[in-house]
């Protein structure tokens, strides 16, 4: 674990020393939030839209933006730089567990996302959004979002390790857009058309989005929260195992 922590600290230093990389991570999700609420907010007035639970449409849209902010996978791009610059071989030549090499970057990605999510939620509060589950719900919302950031960074790291190319890794990250839009992104699942509802049911991101939304709009509803955490936990383990296997067989 100490190796993971040492490598995680290095990952955090890397992030702090490239603040420019945080600008799109914050700006683009906020932009989508403003545009989506601006376009659809009037259709769903808070007083007459039951699924908003008395809040405004921005509260319903916020999880989409948080998920988008958690899906930049910058850790994988830093990994490509390490591979291209030779530092990755330096790490592989050290007696460090391969799991620590993987987890170090993912821990840093998770910590970075905790901060970004906290900033975005705190920025949203003055615009009438509140967290129905209170401070504990806020903390768990941060952890769930950071968990997804770790999963998606793990997925992008797989592409980075396989292709060793920044262009391919960047392109691989675009897979998040279909995942984001095949969800109950604009309305709850039961209001989607049948084909979209089926697609959303098979999409793991749906359960994370619904859990995040539940933290914001509902009281503690474990039937929505549980599946979200379960999806993140299962996908997190799968990503770590695949990453470790990929590094072990990396030639």
């Amino acid at each position, binding site marked *: 674990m100490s190796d993971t922590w040492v490598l995680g600290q290095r990952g955090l230093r890397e992030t702090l020393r490239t603040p420019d990389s945080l600008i799109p991570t914050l700006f683009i999700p906020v932009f989508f939030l403003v545009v989506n609420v601006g376009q659809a907010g009037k259709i769903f007035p808070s007083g007459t839209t039951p699924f908003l639970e008395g809040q405004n449409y921005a509260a319903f849209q916020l999880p989409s933006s948080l998920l988008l902010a958690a899906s930049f996978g910058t850790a994988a791009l830093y990994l490509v730089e390490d591979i291209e610059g030779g530092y990755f071989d330096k*790490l592989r030549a050290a*007696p460090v567990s391969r799991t620590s090499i993987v987890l170090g970057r993912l821990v840093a990605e998770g910590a970075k996302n905790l901060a970004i999510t906290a900033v975005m939620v705190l920025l949203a509060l003055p615009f009438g959004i509140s967290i129905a589950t209170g401070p504990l719900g806020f903390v768990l919302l941060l952890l769930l979002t950071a968990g997804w950031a770790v999963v998606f960074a793990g997925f992008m790291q797989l592409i980075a390790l396989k292709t060793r190319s920044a262009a391919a890794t960047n392109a691989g990250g675009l897979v998040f857009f279909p995942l984001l839009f095949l969800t109950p992104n604009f309305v709850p699942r039961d209001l989607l058309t049948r084909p979209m509802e089926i697609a959303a049911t098979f999409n793991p991101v749906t359960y994370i989005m619904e859990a995040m939304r539940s933290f914001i709009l509902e009281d503690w509803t474990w039937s929505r929260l549980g599946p979200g955490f379960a999806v993140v936990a299962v996908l997190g383990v799968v990503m770590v195992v695949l990453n470790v296997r990929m590094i072990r067989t990396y030639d």
Partner: protein
Amino acid sequence: MTAAVEAQRLVKHFGGRGGTVEAVRGVDLSVSKGEVFGFLGPNGAGKSTTVKMLTTLMSITSGTALVAGVDVAADPDAARRRIGVALQEAGLDPRQTGRELLVLQARLFGSPRGEAADRAQSLLELVDLVEAADRRIKGYSGGMKRRLDLASALVHEPEVLFLDEPTTGLDPASRLTVWDEVRRINRRGTTVFLTTQYLEEADALCDRLAIIDGGVIVREGTPSELKSQLRERQGLAYGPTLDEVFLDATGRTRERIEGEVQEVHA
């Protein structure tokens, strides 16, 4: 006495769309403790692939490799604790400072925080980078990066140090500085396994050397032995240089190399 490096029938195949590429085809090597061993060969001859296999960075298709008495395939972590590696690309993280990089490296080799900081300081002094220690590496010159890379390969006082083309791309002054470092490291008892494209470098630094071509070893001996063998075999009236030994061993001639260059331009 156990050899510092012992490779037997080392083979590496790469599979690709065009079929299997036999990059290394049965290399036998024995490097004694305390030697500076030179490993030479033209581009694509199998030098870096061999080094990567010996340093646990690449899987071995067949054959065995012992480094500091440890089978690198059977117990890679034990081998990693005994070897230092500085590859062709100076493996550095440009966003860290020199000191941070060395402390991190020492901690990854098991040193506690305080001990790692002390070790980093002494290595910075060794490679004359104390003044630049707290600057980010991206601002270092090529020579400084090479010296830092060398230092990072020494954090755990390895028994065998692998240097893969450590002076490629350096200006003459920086190259001489790296040569001095290599000699100093070797005087402290570290075995050095050095690959290089520069034959004068091999002549100046190496006790013994091997030349690899097409994935097999084609010459092995001390620089003076190899030169004498060539002089006797070809009945030369003068003492040949290591360049001539290399060209003879690899079947290359100046005319052929010029032809290859012209072909590229066409």
